[in-house]
């Protein structure tokens, strides 16, 4: 340590601040790590020590989960995370899908370094800092090793906590990953609407609207008329269907089913001024837990039915927020 470092160490009661050379070196390591999809040496060292059992394990598990995990031969190793701060230029919707995908890859990179079999209790998170048209996409979870299971190339990513993970495994349902579907489209009355799939695989359907249907889309029907707005409805339905189709494709790559808990859909009317007719923007994001299971496997658990005698606030009926839900996000204006 330098002389200055010694003096600072004295001032800070032994907790020396990192000197600027050290912190610049750390930054350079992060830079190289993110570019080449690897881990900085100090992260690799921490995870290596945790994998070898040289340092205490770290787990988001509750006490009950710890007990159950121990009984089932599941050992926590360390907390792992994946972060990607993503700027959405031409597409807000696509930015969300890509941001989560990147974060997921990085979470798996840390889990592989641990020789983990699975990452449990994975939560989708973001911090409360929005810079321009960008935000962070963060996944955090607890990496575990399961006794008797060799470390695979691709650890399971489970959005469920350990308690539910064990129950699912016992019922022959393996939560294996996260699937994402995202889709947006513009409806430009009079011009037709441009379909854009996030993977670029959906056909570019183009609808031309007649003058009367354009009037319907724009809501310029007389106030006392009851009428469905088929064009707008069809447009919106199409977006949702394509988002779900993409979720399905993403899920098919990983397992046999998707439990889609997170839906975010917005249909926005965009005024353009200059006597131009308004256009509509529809966007839909759906995120789910991918599971791998055989058809019609039974559930081995006995379930006891109870009549709960409390009038209100029973812990059995109280709503708990879904653990993995990063939405609703704040309404983002600006780029789609």
């Amino acid at each position, binding site marked *: 340590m330098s002389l200055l470092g010694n003096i600072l160490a004295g001032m800070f009661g032994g907790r020396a601040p990192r000197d600027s050379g050290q912190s610049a070196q750390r930054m350079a390591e992060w830079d190289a790590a993110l570019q080449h999809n690897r881990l900085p040496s100090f992260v690799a060292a921490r995870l290596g020590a945790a994998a070898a059992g040289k*340092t205490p394990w770290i787990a988001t598990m509750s006490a009950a989960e710890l*007990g159950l995990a121990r009984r089932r031969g599941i050992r*926590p190793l360390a907390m792992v995370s994946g*972060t990607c701060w993503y700027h959405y230029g031409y597409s807000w919707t696509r930015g969300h899908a890509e941001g989560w995908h990147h974060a997921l890859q990085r979470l798996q990179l840390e889990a592989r370094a641990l020789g983990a079999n699975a990452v449990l209790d994975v939560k989708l998170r973001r911090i409360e800092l929005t810079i321009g048209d960008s935000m962070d996409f963060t996944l955090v979870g607890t990496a575990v090793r399961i006794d008797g299971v060799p470390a695979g190339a691709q650890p399971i990513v489970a959005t469920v906590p350990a308690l539910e993970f064990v129950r699912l495994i016992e019922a022959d349902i393996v939560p294996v990953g996260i699937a994402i579907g995202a889709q947006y489209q513009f409806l430009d009355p009079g011009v037709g609407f441009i379909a854009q799939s996030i993977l670029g695989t959906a056909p570019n359907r183009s609808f031309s609207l007649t003058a009367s249907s354009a009037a319907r889309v724009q809501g310029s029907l007389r106030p006392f008329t009851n009428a469905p707005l088929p064009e707008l409805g069809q447009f919106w339905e199409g977006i949702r269907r394509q988002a779900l189709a993409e979720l399905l494709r993403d899920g098919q790559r990983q397992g046999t089913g998707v439990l889609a808990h997170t839906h975010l859909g917005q249909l926005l009317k965009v005024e353009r001024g200059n006597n131009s007719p308004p256009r509509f923007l529809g966007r839909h994001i759906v995120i789910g837990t991918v599971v791998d299971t055989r058809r019609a496997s039974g559930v081995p658990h006995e379930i006891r039915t109870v009549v709960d005698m409390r009038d209100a606030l029973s812990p059995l009926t109280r709503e708990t927020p879904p653990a993995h839900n990063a939405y609703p996000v704040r309404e983002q204006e600006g780029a789609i």
Partner: protein
Amino acid sequence: MSDAKDIPAHALERLRGLRGEGHPGGIFTSDFSVNEFLLVRKAGFEPIGLCIGSCIYHVGIQYGSWNKNQELEMLSQAMYEARELAMVRMREEAAGMGADGIVGVELTVKRLEWDEHILEFMAIGTGVVHAKGHPGFKGPKEQPFTSDLSGQDFWTLLHAGYRPLEMVMGSCVYHVAHQGMLRSMGNVGRNTELTNFSQALYDAREIAMERMQNEAIEAGAEGVVGVDLHEGSHNWQPHVIEFFAVGTAVTPITSEQDASVIPDPQLVLSVNS
């Protein structure tokens, strides 16, 4: 009550009124719910009294360079030291009342409205003692253990074969650089990662984790349970964020239980909901 030398006279007075060794007629105080009380008893412990530690702390000013990702060490140190002081004072109270440990610790930070630089840190929990005087439940260095687990989780933890040692935490206050997004104006219309922001979050989280882990090593723990990792901004400018990791360090109970005796939870379905 030899450990209680820093506790003011009126607090000592209060401690003497509590039930404890040599004071069977005293009463206990606790913020337990009924269910927590029952389960702490079921676990073989008795509540003695509420333990409080607080610390009002003036947090100095430190500015990050506008365009640099960096830890603001002075703020990290302030947040860490203030929490530590509150915890130590709470533990002193517990030691003074002869408690084996404190369960259900709540650690809160509050800004005082008349000065943005002054933060109030408070730790509160219920001091408990083993009903039969078992000596094996103290924390590190024969001090009372501390844990943020509820009474229910305390019972469950003991049944899982572990006992709590100490609440461990790691803090890192970090300045996220302003520059970067517009490093090249050509990026504005592109969907692209802003790696310098990603790096900032990674680095800050890594530092907080390392610090919490170091505390766990020092406590001689096997692991840390119930870890909560969260980000907060205590009225700082928007680019300054605290990453805070906290959990309960645990160790296996002396006579280690066989894993097969850990009770399997039973599934129930409430049919009148």
